[in-house]
């Protein structure tokens, strides 16, 4: 059973959490071409948020070219989905921010590298 994790106690907005989790499932191949996402209403009811929160998450994924949104039907994963190229610069900035935070915690280069290695293992093992 495919699931996404939501944390109301996190500082990250719920719509970003939803978008990140679905993006991760697509990246790992758990959500394949044509897979349908739950309806906005159903996911909003299960997560316990406003419809607009889920709609915003889906729009982010649609803007990245990962899902196809059509009025009256559920969001579908786009076949051979690849994030659009302009997004890569933003990813580099976010990764830089993560590295900064790790360094500020007192980690050295090897420890930061080990951190990413562990994260990669966990991601592809799921």
């Amino acid at each position, binding site marked *: *059973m*495919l*699931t*996404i*994790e*939501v*944390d*109301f*106690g996190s500082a990250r907005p719920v719509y970003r959490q939803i978008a990140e989790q*679905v993006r991760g*499932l697509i990246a790992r191949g758990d*959500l394949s071409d044509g897979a349908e*996402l*739950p*309806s906005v*209403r*159903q*996911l*909003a*009811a*299960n*997560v*316990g*948020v*406003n*419809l607009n929160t889920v709609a915003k998450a889906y729009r982010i994924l649609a803007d990245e070219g990962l899902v196809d949104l059509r009025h009256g039907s559920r969001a579908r994963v786009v076949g051979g989905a690849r994030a659009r190229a302009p997004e890569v610069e933003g990813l580099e900035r976010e990764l830089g921010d993560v590295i900064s935070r790790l360094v500020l915690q007192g980690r050295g280069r090897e420890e930061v590298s080990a951190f990413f290695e562990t994260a990669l293992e966990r991601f592809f093992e799921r």
Partner: protein
Amino acid sequence: MLSRIILASTIVTVVLVVWLVARADGERVFYMDLGRPLDERDRARVRRVQGVTLASALVGVAAAAFAPLPAAVLVATLLPFVPIAWLLIEVVGAVKSAKPAEASLRFRVPLTEPPPAKQYVSLPLQIAHGALIALSAAAFVFVRGQLPVLVPLHFDAAGRPNRWGSPDELWALGGIMLFCWALCWLLVVGVARERWALPTAHTEAYARASRRRRQLLVRMIEVLMLCVNAAVAASWLGIAIGSLPGWSHLLGITVVVALVLSAGGAVGSLVAFLAPLTAVQRQLSALGGVALGTRPDGWRWGGMIYYAPDDPALFIPKRFGIGQTFNFARPAAWLILVLLVVVPIGIAFTSMLLSRR
């Protein structure tokens, strides 16, 4: 004699239902997990309810057996409210002292739609339900032409008619049967649409247990509603046939049968389903808790009422006890509650008006 038996049966039935609920078992009291070990106060609550229930039963049965009939009717009408009211008072007291675990702010949500309502219902039970309504209506149509101008429409606690009217008013009972069937489906849809949130650990096991809980709830609702409608059908046809010349002895028997069916449904459902529901509820609590995904600050009145304006879900698993509750911040919750009261009254009133035209 029959009247006194009916009076005593009414009292004993209510007492039995209350007695079944009044228990302290392991870590639960009145079938509720209070989030803390049971103490002497909890056991004292159960003893008080049992004491009041037993006393009510003794007084009620004695009154039914020996008191003048009008007094016995009055006692049988009012006395059942005493153990019920006492039970509610003790339940509220127990909930106020509860320390429920906070619903976790971190949980998982499936990306698949939850199983629809039709996956939980029993086709044989639904067919039986529909057939019961159709056959009852057909049987009434068959005898309608032979009924007198006035038939008994309401009975006191002793089973004696105390209101008379046109036979067409009996169509209200058919309307009530349809309403009960619709209510059954409303409750089943409510169970199916309950929030589908899972813990971050033991996710699959929790999902299986959650499906099992929904299955049991739906089955209990179906059995209970079928028994209620069987009681209504018995009343409908019993009154109709009992109003025919030479069949008046059937009226008293009708009241007994209706009482047995409705009480049997209530008691039978509790006996058959409370234990497995309690077991699966315990399993869910152990695997990850209940009421996942609900707003901690949405639970009011010690956790008995859920009011969370920013939560779009309408049907919420109860924090205490078995079953589900509404998110009372949703207008639909109030609409459904109003309809549950207004529709049966409307059916009876409309039937009365139509029969007087």
